[in-house]
């Protein structure tokens, strides 16, 4: 089975990841995350002063600003902002910084499908870079169901998305990966053949699909998300190693 994206051979193959942290020097934390041709840059400012109107007495106020590739933000970007905020807000231990504000700006740099997933991954890397205390780390993967072959294609390009009958975005946190060091050991339910720990943090699906297709997509994305988790882990440990060497030198 060949994909429209000629660089990949298997439907479950992801595009190469790329990430770079601490690239904006005026922000408290920043990161870029790429899924092949899609690239999102994200900056974090905070914990800093917040407008009295938005101040929360027991925790930090988290504000997300999403900027599209071209033009001014519209309703789509508002939905993106809401989705990212609702997902990140509970991950951030905002009770440690009461009456402050944390602003996260998400700017699309290159667009080739899966912008929401790329933005999620960029945002979590930027938060890590800014040193904001987090409950857990998330990883996001998008998949589509091809209308011609009925096959699940992970991490689709824009070209592949035009032939999709449905699009699914999933976000998983890393609580599962920590509880079982080896992902193969994740307990499987006897009858459903699903890892019983699969917990969906965020999901957004549109199009036309059956219940079974939805859960197949969830499982495929869950497996792929483990790779993203691994990547984020390496990215952070490499960055820390480098910083440690610099402070020693």
């Amino acid at each position, binding site marked *: 089975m060949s994909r429209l994206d000629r660089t990949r051979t298997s439907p479950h193959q992801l595009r190469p990841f790329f990430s770079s942290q601490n690239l904006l020097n005026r922000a408290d934390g920043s990161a870029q995350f790429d899924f092949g041709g899609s690239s999102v840059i994200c900056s974090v400012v905070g914990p800093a002063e917040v407008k009295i109107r938005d101040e929360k007495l027991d925790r930090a106020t988290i504000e997300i600003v999403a900027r599209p590739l071209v033009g*001014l*933000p*519209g*309703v789509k970007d*508002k939905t993106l902002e809401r989705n990212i905020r609702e997902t990140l807000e509970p991950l951030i231990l905002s009770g440690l910084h009461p009456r402050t504000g944390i602003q996260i700006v998400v700017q699309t740099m290159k667009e080739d499908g899966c912008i929401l997933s790329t933005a999620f991954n960029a945002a979590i890397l930027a938060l890590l870079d800014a040193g904001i205390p987090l409950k857990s780390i998330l990883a996001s993967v998008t998949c589509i169901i091809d209308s011609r072959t009925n096959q699940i294609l992970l991490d689709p390009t824009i070209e592949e998305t035009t032939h999709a009958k449905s699009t699914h975005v999933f976000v998983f946190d890393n609580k599962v990966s920590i509880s079982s060091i080896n992902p193969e050991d994740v307990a499987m339910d006897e009858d459903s053949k699903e890892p019983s720990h699969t917990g969906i943090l965020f999901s957004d699906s549109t199009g036309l699909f059956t219940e079974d297709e939805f859960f197949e997509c969830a499982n495929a994305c869950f497996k792929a998300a483990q790779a993203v988790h691994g990547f984020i882990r390496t990215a952070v440990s490499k960055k820390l190693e480098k910083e440690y060497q610099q402070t020693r030198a």
Partner: protein
Amino acid sequence: MDRKRVPGPELSVAPLVEYPVGYKRWTPLEEKRHDLKRQTEDMRPIYLKTGLINQANGSAYIELEKTKLACGVYGPRPAKKLGGILSTKGTLNCEIKFATFSCAKRRSNVRVLLESDGFGSCLAAAITAASVALAHAGIEMLDLVAGCSASYIQIGPNPASISSRTSSSKARGSISTQIFMDADLEEEKYEQGAIVLAYMPSLNEITHVLQSGKAEGSTISKSVEYCVEACNKIYAVMHHALLESINENKEAL
């Protein structure tokens, strides 16, 4: 362009409405109204209900056949300090809004009016509904305020054209001006002028008169009289709606 709404085409217009030859539309030829069931002094039947918005402190819904209007009252709540001056008086903030689908032409985004049939009558309905909603919210008032509208329309063998408000008609002999109470949209197209009146029935005081267009003094004073009379009728409906809401509350307890 509005970026906070789902974007549509930049420009869209209502299609031209065409009537076949010989199709007779309503004109104020005889002393008959657009709604044949009504006499000139009749109002449209009023449906008034309180308490439809459960988040609001007080609310009212009014229906005059095709004109439908909902009103919500929120408060009293602490006012924002205006320039640091403390006022001993409260402020009444009023917002009126037409639903985009309420008129023949879609209103681009300018209390919610759901459907409108006639301008004067919808202002009158808004006054009535707002007053009932305030009472429902338990805000102390001198009296309930009822609103009523009337249009002056020339009837006669030579009905004035739609743009008659600006053109002067000289053939006065054959034309008489008739007061149409609570005119609907079709009738308003032929009006020479209109009056909207708000009145406190139990104090017998007029709180607001909005007169537009031209009419003789006698016509105006006559129409004020008619409106006051109609407001007394509306007052009964308002009273009834409020009593009903109290009874419902009692049952609920």
